[in-house]
């Protein structure tokens, strides 16, 4: 350190580097500034209410720009570019969170209005104004999804066993490829398929819950196959070999060794697959139709399902009773999200509780 040193830095290593915590300070500052700006807007009556989404978003953009300028001044262009990308990448993540938060908020705040006992104990039969409920839709969703699971779980599970334990050659490769392709079938096409299949035998006016189950199975089977296949491949080969060495036949090895070992993973996969199809709307709209009455018979007559209930309540809301219908739609959406999230939670809990304890 000579007297001619231009910069009286305390620490030579931190020269030319933004101080620790500068990033957070700039971020917090930007949010505060934009929050203040929007707060002034709200106070002056320019906007209706405080726009938190806009404040966070514009604040983050301001942060990106400011941090780049600071860093370019202190650290030079290469470091500045690195910081810019870091903040942009973080911004991308925050942008993705915004719709999630906004959606969760509005579903909760608007859905709670009709989230009452009546909603779960009544159907929409003979109801024109307020009141009424979604019991018929909830029952319909449960029946249709249960039946879809009954169809697709055995097929999916057996197929994944084939792929892992037996499959060699062209057939196995073909199945793997087409299962992957099947994951990309648009859900509405699955609905059209179920319709085309049944309309051939029963005429064009046919609608039933079972058709919905067939359509959902088309969407569910590939998911079950992929997840089970992955889980079965995780079973250590030593277990199979030990079983063979004891003279146990292959099919018993699979039934008594491989499947019990991977049971938790398989259950998780199936639960996630159910969670994925339970919210499907488009195929059910086509093949289950809609009704206002209870229907416990899956092969006869139209059957209401929860997603279709949400759709019809919203789109058919009109006139003086529109508000009641829209509130029912939101309550239905809240119920649907709760069901899906519960299924996801259960799947994760199963996966965690029964995770393989081997020291792999």
């Amino acid at each position, binding site marked *: 350190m000579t007297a001619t040193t231009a910069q009286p830095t305390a620490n030579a290593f931190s020269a030319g580097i933004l101080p620790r915590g500068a990033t957070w300070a700039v971020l917090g500052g930007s949010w505060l500034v934009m929050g203040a700006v929007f707060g002034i807007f709200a106070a002056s009556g320019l906007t209706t209410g405080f726009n938190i989404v806009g404040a966070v978003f514009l604040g983050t953009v301001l942060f990106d720009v400011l941090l780049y300028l600071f860093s370019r001044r202190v650290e030079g262009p290469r470091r500045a570019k690195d910081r810019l990308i870091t903040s942009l990448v973080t911004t991308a993540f925050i942008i993705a969170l915004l719709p999630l938060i906004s959606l969760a908020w509005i579903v909760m705040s608007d859905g709670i209005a009709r989230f009452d006992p009546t909603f779960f104990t009544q159907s929409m039969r003979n109801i024109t104004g307020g009141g009424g409920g979604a019991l018929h839709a909830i029952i319909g969703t449960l029946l249709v999804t249960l039946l879809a699971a009954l169809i697709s779980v055995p097929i999916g599970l057996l197929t994944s066993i084939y792929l892992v334990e037996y499959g060699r050659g062209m057939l196995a490769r073909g199945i793997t490829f087409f299962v992957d392709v099947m994951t990309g079938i648009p*859900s509405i096409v699955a609905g059209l398929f179920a319709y085309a299949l049944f309309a051939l035998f029963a005429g064009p006016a046919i609608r039933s819950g079972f058709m919905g189950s067939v359509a959902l199975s088309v969407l569910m089977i590939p998911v079950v196959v992929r997840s089970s296949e992955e889980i079965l491949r995780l079973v250590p080969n030593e277990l199979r070999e030990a079983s063979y060495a004891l003279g146990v*036949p292959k099919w018993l090895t699979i039934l008594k060794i491989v499947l019990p070992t991977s049971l938790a993973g398989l259950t998780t996969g199936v639960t996630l697959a159910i969670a994925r199809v339970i*919210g499907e709307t488009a195929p059910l709209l086509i093949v289950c139709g809609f009704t206002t009455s209870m229907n416990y018979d899956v092969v006869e007559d139209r059957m209401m399902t929860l997603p279709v209930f949400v759709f019809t309540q919203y789109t058919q809301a009109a006139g003086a009773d529109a508000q009641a219908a829209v509130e029912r739609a939101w309550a239905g959406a809240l119920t649907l999200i709760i069901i899906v999230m519960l299924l996801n939670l259960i799947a994760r809990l199963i996966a965690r509780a029964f995770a393989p304890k081997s020291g792999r």
Partner: protein
Amino acid sequence: MTTGTAEVLRTRTRVRLGDRVFSISTVVAGTIILAVLAAVAIFLILQSLPAVFAQPGTLPSDAVNFWAYVWPFVFGTLWAAFLALIMATPLAIGIALFISHYAPRRVSQVLGYIIDLLAAIPSVVFGLWGITTLAPFVQPFYSWLTEVAGWFPLFAGPVSGTGRTILTAAIVLAVMVIPIMTAICREVFLQTPRLHEEAALALGATRWEMVTMAVFPFARSGIISAIMLGLGRALGETLAVAMVLSPAVIVKFAVLQAQSPNTIAANIALQFPEATGLSVNALIASGLVLFVVTLLINVLARYIVSRRKTFSGAN
């Protein structure tokens, strides 16, 4: 070995029987999947033949033939999906990078779960959100955009008063395809050889330079297939578009006007419950077109991925 041969033979036969029944049932299950896929194609073709060879004037919306009928919807589908991907691709790559290379290691898995939550939300709820929250929220931006950039054909006025335009639908679509694109990108980014990354860092590269030099070249094909899988999802998405868009049978690029081109899937969902006779066949035929397009895109995407590693969007 010294026990009776009959007993040995009997055990063998019994073993073979169980094995055979079990292995055959697994093969049957696998074949059912192939049969279902074939059945999807066959039944759709059977039901759509009447519409494809329909007489002029019998199709809905007074189309001269089936291709003239389906063209506006094909255009709307491709245009909405394209707009969605323009928005979703950079975001998905950014999020995947954030989770794989930027976020602290301890929280990155939780962040991945949060993004996956987006994928768990049913499309009808997205539709409801799009029409009640997003459309009114973006409408002021739209009218500002037509005032400032109205000379540019895409943003030409008159602006939609409700915000229910194809751009809003594309935003909802983008939100819906981001999880699957992120999941695949994240997985490929994580597979980048550690040595490449460390070598780049050791040479003095900043983190961004390391990403451009080591991660992106390695992950290029993965990113491409993620884009194509997202495209397949966006093409087939139904309810969100059906609820958000205020549809018309029209071909135009302007994204902010009240009358927007409808997509195939949304058109089917809206028209099918009331359709009868030949219009049912026409809708199924348009579904077949959608099926073929998504099938081609998915096959291509899977081909690109399968050259690399075995993972799919299904898990």
